[in-house]
């Protein structure tokens, strides 16, 4: 939360700077001329992964990042007559998700049945489905490399208004409580479901960096890598003993007014 506040403060400062720079522009030109507006849309490819992978994860059988979408708008303020440097403030709506299947050993697990919980250590197969819908505010610095190419980098803040992280376990066994507890085997068609959705973090922040290439006068091709700096789960959530960071590549198009 402390970090989040800092980022918020930083973003407010940046916005203020953009404002001030705009209003104090000494050139005779129309100050609005230094603003650039863009609407964009694209797809998110990536996943939420612990870095590095913890020893509990023995093998990743399958990984599907799903087709996730984003739409948004960006406003950029260019500084100085050369328009070499600028700052951007964006707002985008995006979905992120992934489906994974992995082999784990001694993996923290909570199985839910009829509102009752059985926790322990799972060894076997875990299927996970992660999906989130977020509002993201990126605040980035922009550098124009040449007439067509812009490079941007900076932090982003996000708020998740819909979150899910659930799945099921099978072909393995649960040690109830800890590794010395009762051993319950799940084989054949026996499976148990879990749902960690309510333990997902609502606010996240991270860093993003990318390029924007002007294919035509108004059409931009964008590629951005967004790297979450806090785990997708709340700190108080201990069942999964390691932090998982959202790492997504966003590819898309923009229309520049």
């Amino acid at each position, binding site marked *: 939360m402390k970090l989040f506040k800092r980022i918020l403060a930083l973003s407010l400062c940046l916005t203020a700077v953009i404002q001030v720079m705009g209003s104090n522009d000494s050139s005779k030109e129309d100050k609005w001329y230094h603003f650039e507006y863009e609407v964009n849309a694209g797809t998110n490819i990536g996943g939420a992964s612990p870095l590095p992978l913890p020893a509990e994860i023995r*093998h990743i059988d399958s990984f599907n990042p799903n087709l996730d979408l984003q739409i948004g708008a960006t406003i950029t303020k260019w500084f100085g007559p050369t328009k070499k440097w600028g700052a951007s403030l964006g707002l985008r709506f995006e979905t992120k998700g992934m489906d994974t299947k992995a082999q784990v*050993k001694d993996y923290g697990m909570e199985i839910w049945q009829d509102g009752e919980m059985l926790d322990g250590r799972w060894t076997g197969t875990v299927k996970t489905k992660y999906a989130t819908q977020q509002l993201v505010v990126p605040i980035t610095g922009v550098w124009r490399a040449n007439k067509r190419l812009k490079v941007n980098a900076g932090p982003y803040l996000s708020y998740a208004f819909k979150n899910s992280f659930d799945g099921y376990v099978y072909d393995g066994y649960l040690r109830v409580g800890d590794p010395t507890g*009762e051993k319950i085997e799940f084989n054949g068609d026996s499976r148990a479901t879990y749902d960690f959705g309510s333990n997902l973090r609502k606010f996240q922040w991270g860093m993003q960096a990318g390029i924007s290439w002007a294919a035509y006068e108004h059409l931009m091709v964008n590629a951005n890598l967004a790297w979450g700096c806090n785990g997708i789960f709340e700190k108080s959530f201990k069942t999964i003993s390691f932090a998982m960071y959202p790492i997504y590549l966003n590819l898309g198009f923009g229309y520049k007014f």
Partner: protein
Amino acid sequence: MEKNKDMNFIKTTVILMIATLMVSCIKEEPLNSECDIITAQLPDIVLVDNTIISNNNVEFTVRYDQPWPEYAPVFTITEGATISPSNGTVRDFTQPQTYTVTSQDGKWHKTYTVRVKRQNAPEDPKDEFIYMHYNFEHVRTLTTVGRTYDVFYEIDNEGEEEWAWATANSAYALTLQGKEPQDFPTYQANEGIDGKCAVLVTRGTGSFGASVKKPMAAGNLFMGSFDPKNALQKPLEATHFGMLFNETPISFSGFYKYKSGEEYCEPDAAGKLQPIEGKRDMFNLYAVMFEPTEEMPWLDGSNVLSESNPNIICTAIIPDRHESEEWVEFSVPFEYRPGKNIDIKKLQEGLYRLAIVMSSSENGDYFCGAIGSTLQVDQLTLVCKHDKLENQ
């Protein structure tokens, strides 16, 4: 079209990159954290029953003519774990001994209580007939995952606790349906003929049971042991029927009350219970004597009443079971399977097993029955004939 192709190419590349990144950083396998006794042996000692290994207990039963009471058990444990005292240490088993297994990663340890029971030496009793009574007066409670349930035991002639009875209550605990002993399929109640009695009730297993296509749990009580590891996927095979038995059974008698649940159901292909119009549930209560073999060391739900099971010697089955709100007295003789009889020498050597088996839904093994069906049982008696020993 071109753009789509490009997008697909980029997407595939990114997936491959991420996958490679993830796979390339799979860490070395962590050391084992479990500390289980997997097998247990008493080298050079003749045992007369299957060694029981649970999560915290090991129990051997040695033949009456074997040395007593010092043994040097040998255990196999989870890979990399250590056991203390070490394998082969000679200890006095007059009292149960404890062993501590420490995991390979050193972070976990578990204490096992290891018992050695000795088979009673055969002796000639004064009377030709022996009456074995089971009155269900004694229970102890056990707790699994915060659920407490009853475990029945008997007191033998020497005043020692004899854990003859087993139930599937420990597996029912894992469905998280019951909290108190009375919520379980099998428990002790006060309404016995004289004192307490055993109550068996067919229960639903909730969403968890449904998810593993095992939508009901019939009340059950039997002589033998229950294998909780098998309970969820192979419940029929989890019930290990049979106790060491050294007498020739003549008849099986006792008292029961029975009431079928309201709605008889059978599971459909998806494992969901479907009501069957007009059908009532029926209980089961019988005794079976058999000769275990290496391939079939015990009987289980899949073969205990099978007509073609070659190990079965004789059975005592109540022919006219019916619903009743009053206690019904029954007494049935043991009937021998064609060509089968009891060999006195084998009887002396402890080569036969006997099981009394009861269930509140006779087809409960296959998840057919009525939830709520209730069987009460009290004052069971096995009348046995004591054949004169040879060699004495």
